[in-house]
């Protein structure tokens, strides 16, 4: 199993695919990432829906000409998952955003903010996000399954109430989709690690 590429999704209705910002990111991350560019928020969200179980960074413009605004799109995304990191970008100063939009952004998880010409800022934020991925349970599990592909189809968990069994690959999907099964599994495993580490010190 090969190292899986992560997604960088750029959503902006004015920049264009030839913009230095997009080109630079493509050049810089061509080995590690699949870079997609969307001019419409709706199309970007559809793409995100279809790849929800994969690692993603969304670079989203704050302002669009359509009915969808960047902040609205992120709100919509947060209804589905809090695991996807979003870098909001704007040509304007933050204080030109409405106070309602600023409050919404501050109150959402995993949001970063850059100026829309700030290529170095974007790269820096992407690297920060990749470091965060390193310690997150779903990402550690994904890396594990890449190193130990024989574990993918092993049973990880069976739900007592339904008898449904989940393989480790299924669990990775449940974690990424932030389902009750995924959240509960992560919670229980963390509890177990803490219990075992404390017990081993007795």
């Amino acid at each position, binding site marked *: 199993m090969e190292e899986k590429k992560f997604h960088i999704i750029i959503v902006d209705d004015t920049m264009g695919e030839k913009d230095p910002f997009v080109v630079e990111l493509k050049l810089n991350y061509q080995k590690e990432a699949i870079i997609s560019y969307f001019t419409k928020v709706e199309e970007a969200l559809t793409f995100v829906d279809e790849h929800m179980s994969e690692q993603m960074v969304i670079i989203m413009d704050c302002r669009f000409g359509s009915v969808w605004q960047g902040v609205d799109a992120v709100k919509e995304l947060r209804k589905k998952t809090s695991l996807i990191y979003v870098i909001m970008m704007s040509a304007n100063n933050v204080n030109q955003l409405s106070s309602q939009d600023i409050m919404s952004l501050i109150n959402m998880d995993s949001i970063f903010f850059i100026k829309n010409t700030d290529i170095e800022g974007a790269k820096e934020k992407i690297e920060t996000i990749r470091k965060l991925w390193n310690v997150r349970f779903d990402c550690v599990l994904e890396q594990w399954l890449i190193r130990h592909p024989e574990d993918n189809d092993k049973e*990880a*968990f*069976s739900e*007592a*109430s*339904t008898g449904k069994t989940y393989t480790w690959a299924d669990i990775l999907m449940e974690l990424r989709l932030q389902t009750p099964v995924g959240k*509960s599994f992560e*919670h*229980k*495993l963390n*509890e*177990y690690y803490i*219990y*075992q580490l404390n*017990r081993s010190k007795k």
Partner: protein
Amino acid sequence: MIAYNNNPATVLHDFLESCADEAKQFCVDNGIAYTSFCPPDLNHQNIVEIMPDYQLCFLAGHGDENGIYNENGETVVSTFTTNYCFNGKGFYSIACFCAQNLYPHLKALGLQFFVGYNDTFNVRGEREPFIYSAMAGLKSFLSGDNAEIAKEKMLATYDEQIAALDETDPMAAVELVHNKEALVFECDNGTSCLVNLK
């Protein structure tokens, strides 16, 4: 008073019945009289009528934050039922979540001690480790230990069973650690209360 849901259509009915069987055996071993209710007689009315004659209610069934339910999803004991009969009594439950709201509700009505869970109660693989752990506190109580000792013995049993499962079924050990951490074992008079069951 031993109540449990062993309706064949109920998920984990075999586990719930096994726990109740253990409770009955503990009573027999210690010469303690008991009455038991299971479907189709598992309902709030039957429990309310008989509780004044008993010191302890053991209830094994499916629960949520507010209560524990029978095979038809009807309330057996909940925050929405009249529960004055639990004043001065003990309540030992094996049910998900009921320690969240049901315990404070019963405590406000004068419940002397409570054993239950504030999150999901999970079972995986072999039933015995889960039964031994969940029933250890009751076994201790019925043999005459006070709450402090019963709680210690119950937690120790959980640790022993987790250690054993670590060797045979680690994912079951994960579930048992979760049950242990969700356990709420509280006594109104600190942990020194001793219920006179005979």
